[in-house]
């Protein structure tokens, strides 16, 4: 059984059909890339999985659970974490606190216990340690106590990655993690992601325009164009698919 099973998902915004009968699967442990020209519907699909958008039709199953039955805040508890294309951190908090919020679903303090400090000490300590470990993995431990506001773009992208990692994701969805990075940074990122995948037994769904990185990393590639799937398969198959070549010819990628 695939870990993520997407069946005929359609999303419509007014007159725009952002996704049309989109189906594909991701197997446990796989690195699957979702590519396509600008406006193809990749981010829209992420937002459907995050339950930010409701699909007009279709079904998404994650590890046997019907995702569409869940509210946005319940998705992370199932082990689904993501990063955002345009960054969605919390500038008012420190880097460490940002990452600790990533562990929200895996901690328990509530309004009452926190106020009265019942069992908070141990959990705070655990969260802090886990957040430091996650920051260590993305090589940002020395930034832990900086305010997130005003840090460089590449740093913020790695904070988002650490914030997802602390949740111990089963499926990690990355929306253009390499955008805005320099060439050498992209290589480092690809290396890091492959390492993290083995270390944490991750399944990854990667949206990326950086083709070299996609071809190198992924085991499966799904290609979207104007909301419709036009190809699917291993990197070699997809690379030579005439439909894919045609879809990309018009755009500059």
């Amino acid at each position, binding site marked *: 059984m695939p870990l993520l099973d997407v069946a005929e998902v359609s999303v419509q915004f007014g007159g725009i059909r952002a996704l049309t009968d989109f189906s594909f699967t991701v197997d446990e442990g796989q690195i699957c890339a979702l590519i396509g020209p600008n406006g193809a519907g990749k981010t829209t699909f992420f937002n459907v999985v995050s339950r930010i958008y409701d699909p007009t039709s279709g079904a998404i199953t994650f590890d046997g659970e019907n995702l569409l039955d869940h509210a946005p805040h319940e998705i992370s508890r199932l082990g689904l974490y993501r990063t*955002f294309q345009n960054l969605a951190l*919390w500038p*008012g908090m420190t880097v460490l606190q940002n990452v600790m*919020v990533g562990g929200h679903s895996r901690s328990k303090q509530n309004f009452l216990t926190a106020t009265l400090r019942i069992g908070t000490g141990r959990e705070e300590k655990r969260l802090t340690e886990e957040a430091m470990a996650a920051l260590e993995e993305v090589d940002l431990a020395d930034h*832990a106590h900086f305010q997130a506001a*005003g840090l460089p773009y590449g740093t913020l992208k790695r904070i988002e990655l650490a914030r997802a990692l602390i949740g111990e994701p089963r499926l990690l969805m990355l929306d253009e993690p390499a955008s805005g990075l320099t060439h050498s940074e992209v290589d480092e990122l690809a290396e890091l992601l492959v390492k993290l995948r083995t270390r944490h037994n991750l399944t990854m769904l990667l949206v990326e325009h950086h083709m070299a990185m996609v071809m190198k990393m992924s085991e499966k590639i799904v290609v979207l164009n104007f909301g419709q799937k036009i190809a699917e398969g291993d990197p070699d198959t997809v690379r030579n698919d005439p439909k894919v070549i045609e879809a990309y010819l018009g755009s500059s990628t």
Partner: protein
Amino acid sequence: MSARWTIVQGSPQHRIYRWVGWGSFVAAVLLIPLIVADVAVINIGSNSYKFTMSQLTLATSWAVAVLGVQVIVGYTGQLTLGNSFFAGVGAYLTAILVADYHWSYVSTLVVVLPITFLLGMAIGLPALRIRGLYLALVTISIAALLPSFAKLDTISIPFTGKTISELTNGSNGKDIKSISKIKSPDWIPWDGIAGFFQGIPVVGKFFGEGGLSARQEDTLYKYLIMLAIAVIAFWLVRNLLNSRVGRALQAIRDNETSAAVSGVDLALYKTLAFGVSAALAGVAGTMYAIDIGFVNSDDFGLFLAVNFVVGLVVGGVINMWGAVVGGLAIVLIPSMARSTQSVPLVKQSWLQGPVGPFVQGVLLILLTFVLPGGIVYGIRRLRARFVQVVPPELAAKGEMEEPPEDYIPLMEEPPPELSESVPD
């Protein structure tokens, strides 16, 4: 700036630094009342400013109220202006229970806390749908409601068999102090304490002469009760804000979408934050009733609602010291503005007559420009020029290359609204 003094977090110096800081605060809080006793006068230029005990006690109540606004506005990012309503409810509940049912003042908190908490949650419900200016509008309407609500004589309250206006004594205001007055217990040796400080060389003269009058003793005792309530409230809120919950609230403030994606239940956390905020306003209302011994609905209208927010902005939006300073500011700024009769470079004739509100307005405008983020934020910036406290991980590197970026919510561009645009 290499002249800065670097203190490593958790080091002995840091401990001393903290002890000195807290020690001075505790000393100030406990000794200033003994110095002020009734009135202290400070002359600056040709202006003479009066500081009274009643200002200090009132400021203690309002500090708790501003803290409540801080929880919801500063930490959760929900622009609500209605907290004076809950303060009014708290004050009236205390007044009614003390005057009509002969409860002791402090025990009324048992009723005030849950009722204002639930009311706050109920009023937080619309905030799940509306935000920003619309939320401000709805909540300030609620604040505007209280004075007329307290005078309603058509609705009767279950269990009491009385109408609201009978319970609140309508527009005459509810008198409590003639029924139950807070008296200092005999076992507190006020005269001994005063004598001790008066006996200290050099500074002794600031503590006045001779024993305290019974009225002064009662005031000091009342102040201690209020101070204890405030300290407990601040401590509990500090626990809340420095926890998973506090971080989740700030995440909601800074970006709701990613907060939800990380597992924060937006509806639950927002509603509970409204409850906490309202309960703090309720406690402030109880403290007000303890302090003044008289509750008049007209004192809990729009003016107070706006004042709470002014206190927050002047004090500091995301630092709990901001609430302390904010409470003081609400009380002191108007009175100091009134007493200001001459300002250098300003024509004397302009400051004659009732120009207090005008001076106050100018002062507030100046403050927002000179100290964006509030007084506490300004003090911290100033302090950072001389002292920096660094975590041990960074100590090895010596000075931090770049001090972390400053962030003042409410002054940033408003975050994108969840319903309108979703980050991609």
